[in-house]
């Protein structure tokens, strides 16, 4: 029993080193364990793939730098897909940290497809007051964002002539790491203005999206890094992009990490019950 007692008293820093090592290893030496294929990512892919060219996809940046590893790759993949399909991309955001992330995406992705700011992509920036922003955009986007993030008046941007309110947008993909996020877009954007909502969310809130998937309030879902990797594969397989796929590259580490966590829980519980039975 002494063995189990020492097992329980292992310093947690050793656990940290084990986890760090197992996560870093596949990044340096890829193990090629592959990626799962999910039905929920396919639904969103098919919707965007079927949109007639020239339509505008709304992207809402509702996350912060901390959630970039999960949400940034999938946002990039969706943007690449939209540009490859000659769709216009309108970006806005409900989190105060959104502007920095949207700026970065604007500098990296449109040039890959020769897309012009104002012509093919516009970034509206962030505004305080979550429900007020969505409801405002439902009536008239200009009333909420008279000028875009750079300060140009919306009238001066050719793309904005065809998009006046939420009803002009065939699908909105909400990249959300918590609240405010896709539920606000459903509760205010969809119920009042019939906005079709899809979401790319951090894995932690993925399981809670299923009631909205079952009623059809959510059209497709990208859940965590796995959802991002699935969409990256879909975009690459249909020849829309051959850019570097960070999410796919990280899936090997995910596999190892999950195995480690499961082993830790099992060993922890075995040691716990072994010592408890002796009344230790």
């Amino acid at each position: 029993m002494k063995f189990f007692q020492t097992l329980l008293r292992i310093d947690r820093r050793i656990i940290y080193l084990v986890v760090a090592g197992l996560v870093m290893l596949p990044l340096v030496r890829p193990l090629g364990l592959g990626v799962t294929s999910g039905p929920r990512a396919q639904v969103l892919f098919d919707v965007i793939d079927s949109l007639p060219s020239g339509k505008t996809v709304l992207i809402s940046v509702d996350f912060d730098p901390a959630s970039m590893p999960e949400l940034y790759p999938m946002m990039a993949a969706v943007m690449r897909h939209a540009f490859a399909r000659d769709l216009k991309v309108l970006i806005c955001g409900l989190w105060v940290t959104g502007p920095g992330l949207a700026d970065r995406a604007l500098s990296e992705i449109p040039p890959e497809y020769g897309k012009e700011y104002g012509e093919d992509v516009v970034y509206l920036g962030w505004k305080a007051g979550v429900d007020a922003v969505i409801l405002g955009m439902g009536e008239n986007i200009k009333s909420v964002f008279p000028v875009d993030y750079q300060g140009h008046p919306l009238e001066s941007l050719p793309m904005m002539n065809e998009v006046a309110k939420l009803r002009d947008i065939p699908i909105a993909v909400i990249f959300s790491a918590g609240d405010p996020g896709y539920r606000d877009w459903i509760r205010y954007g969809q119920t009042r203005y019939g906005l079709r909502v899809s979401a790319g969310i951090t894995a932690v809130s993925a399981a809670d999206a299923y009631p909205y998937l079952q009623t059809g309030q959510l059209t497709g879902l990208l859940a965590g890094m796995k959802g991002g990797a699935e969409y990256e594969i879909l975009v690459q397989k249909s020849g829309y992009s051959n850019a570097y796929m960070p999410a796919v590259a990280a899936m090997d580490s995910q596999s190892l990490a999950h195995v480690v966590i499961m082993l830790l829980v099992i060993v922890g519980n075995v040691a716990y019950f072994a010592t408890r039975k002796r009344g230790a």
Partner: protein
Amino acid sequence: MHVSTDILTWLAVVLTLGIFSFLWKDNPFYKFCEHLFVGVAAGYTICVTWHNSVYPDLITPLFGQGQLLFSIPLLLGLCYFARFIPRVSWLIRFPMAFVLGWASGVAIPAALQADVLRQVQGTFLTPSIFARWDVFLWALISFVGVVSSILYFFFSREHKGALKLASETGIIFLMVGFGASFGYTVMARMSLLIGRFQFLLRDWLGVIR
């Protein structure tokens, strides 16, 4: 392996390791990073709020275009600062009354529509469940799941007899639901760590692509 020579990347690396040092133990370097974070985050919020919200939504219409009606939200907003003046600190109740009243008034119909009516509609068993025996069984299981989970959150009667059985079934479904969330959360946490390692290994040490 070519280590980055960009001073800004090194700054980011130092701060990353500063936060990671909290894993070893709480130390002055971590405290510095923690307080730096608090200050920068607050400053960033101020700047973005000013440039994106206060200036275009209030300053331009009120002072630029002279729409005097906007002096009302300005006054309401300023009342927030009455909190720092003890004698008139009760003034803060006006902006709060406006914010809470408006938010509640908007939230009620929206919540009833999206979270109640729509979810009830999704729970109905329709003849389509007879399509296949497994569709039928899963539909029945989901239906029993929703009903029993709701009964777990029933507080008006002691959980005895049938109600006890229902709430015990309910807790099983709730635990499976939380287990599913738990599983996904492991992926979420690991993704963030992988993201930081990708930054350290690629942008800093240049070991990976």
